[in-house]
């Protein structure tokens, strides 16, 4: 009689040996015994587990760890390799990527070998910084592609609407200067937050200073006009084409007298009013004006006015337009003599010395002249 049902509780331990079981059961039992015996070498906390190339053996990577918030490569590098003809990219997404504007992408582009830093905006990736394969660095989208210099920077309008490409700021952050090109093609320099440029290199190659002065900081330097054509003709010699000085100011005329071998100030009974004694020096030429009224002198020996604002290189003239000061020929010219002093000598007919009206009150003289400064 065949046994059709046997309760396991009725079988004593070791009552059935494995050779009495069916072959399929034995095969499965042997396989299951092999699956549970896997070894992890160098296992430690946070180590990423990788394959080893050996059956039933894994490796704990000491230099690749993840602590739950950061994946760390301790030695070596992190490589992203594109497929043949494909780009290699690494994306950084902040804020769980729920607003679309917080995607950044590092990319090695297969088509042109450029390295790009792009952001995602309005449904497309836009390169913000591109390091070209020829070494050029483009910031912003530079029109025209390559050949824009080592670094090409596209202007971005600041809050005032000024197109700024580069902003230079000093160490404390209190001062700065922005530089950019506007839609007219002018290169503009903006002082700090000023929306009006202080200096413009125009698209037509002119330079405009829109605020402030042009300061020549070294004496003897100036504006060189040597590109212009020179005076020509027999006996004409051009000496200099550098415009290196301009100045205006005031000066004080004094009546001189000759005494004991030198020119000294004459005695003024009344100093009078000096109303308009100004000078304008253009290059080496000094233009001056005398406006002096209500004076009285007591002991002028010759007709000489000193006190000119610059030492003279010699030769010059003075034209008297209105005066009561002279003994002879009230309206006549004065002469600025040879270099070394700063006085106007007045002569009249036949080169005879003129003289002041000594001891006469209320004298006045108005005159203009010019001479070359030493």
């Amino acid at each position, binding site marked *: 009689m065949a046994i059709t049902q046997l309760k396991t509780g009725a079988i004593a331990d070791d009552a059935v040996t494995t050779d009495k079981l069916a072959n399929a059961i034995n095969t499965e039992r042997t396989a299951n015994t092999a699956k549970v015996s896997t070894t992890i070498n160098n296992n430690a906390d946070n180590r990423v587990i990788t394959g080893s190339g050996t059956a039933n053996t894994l490796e704990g990577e000491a230099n690749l760890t993840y602590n739950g918030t950061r994946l760390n490569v301790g030695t070596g590098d992190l490589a992203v390799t594109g497929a043949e003809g494909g780009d290699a990219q690494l994306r950084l997404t902040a804020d769980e990527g729920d607003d679309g504007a917080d995607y950044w992408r590092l990319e090695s582009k297969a088509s042109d070998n450029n390295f790009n830093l792009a952001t995602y905006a309005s449904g497309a990736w836009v390169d913000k910084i591109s390091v070209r394969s020829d070494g050029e660095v483009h910031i912003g989208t530079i029109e025209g592609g390559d050949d824009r210099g080592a670094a090409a920077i596209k202007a971005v309008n600041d809050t005032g609407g000024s197109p700024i490409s580069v902003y230079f700021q000093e160490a404390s952050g209190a001062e700065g200067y922005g530089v950019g090109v506007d839609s007219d093609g002018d290169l503009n320099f903006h002082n700090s937050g000023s929306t009006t440029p202080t200096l413009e290199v125009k698209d037509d190659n002119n330079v405009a200073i829109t605020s402030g002065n042009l300061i020549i900081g070294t004496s003897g330097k100036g504006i060189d006009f040597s590109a212009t054509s020179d005076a020509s003709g027999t006996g004409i010699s051009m000496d200099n084409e550098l415009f290196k000085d301009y100045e205006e100011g005031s000066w004080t005329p004094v009546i001189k007298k000759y005494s004991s071998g030198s020119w000294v100030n004459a005695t003024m009974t009344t100093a009078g009013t000096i109303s308009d004694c100004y000078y304008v020096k253009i290059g080496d030429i000094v233009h001056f004006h005398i406006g002096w009224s209500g004076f009285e002198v007591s002991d002028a020996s010759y007709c000489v006015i000193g006190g000119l604002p610059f030492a003279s*290189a010699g030769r010059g003239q003075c034209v008297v337009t209105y005066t009561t000061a002279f003994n002879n020929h009230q309206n006549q010219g004065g002469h600025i003599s040879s270099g*070394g002093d700063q006085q106007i000598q007045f002569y009249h007919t036949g080169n005879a010395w003129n003289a002041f009206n000594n001891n006469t009150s209320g004298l006045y003289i108005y005159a203009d002249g010019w001479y070359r400064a030493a």
Partner: protein
Amino acid sequence: MALTETIEYDKIEVVGQYKAVQVRKAHIVKKDDKELTRSFERYVLNPDADVSKEPTEVKAVCDAVWTDEVKKSWKTFQESKSPA
């Protein structure tokens, strides 16, 4: 907002064979330390000038360049220009 006016002898130049000392006296008006205007007054001192009342920096230049030789040379030049 304080307005201040100061005087600065901002150029003291020695010019020519007779060492004329050319002085530029700047009148400077400032508002809260920011310069508003600068106007100039000029005069020239020759080697026989009395510089005792000149500011220290002007006098120092005169004393430095007006050697006895320069003074003698200037005197000779002046005498050569005798109007007589």
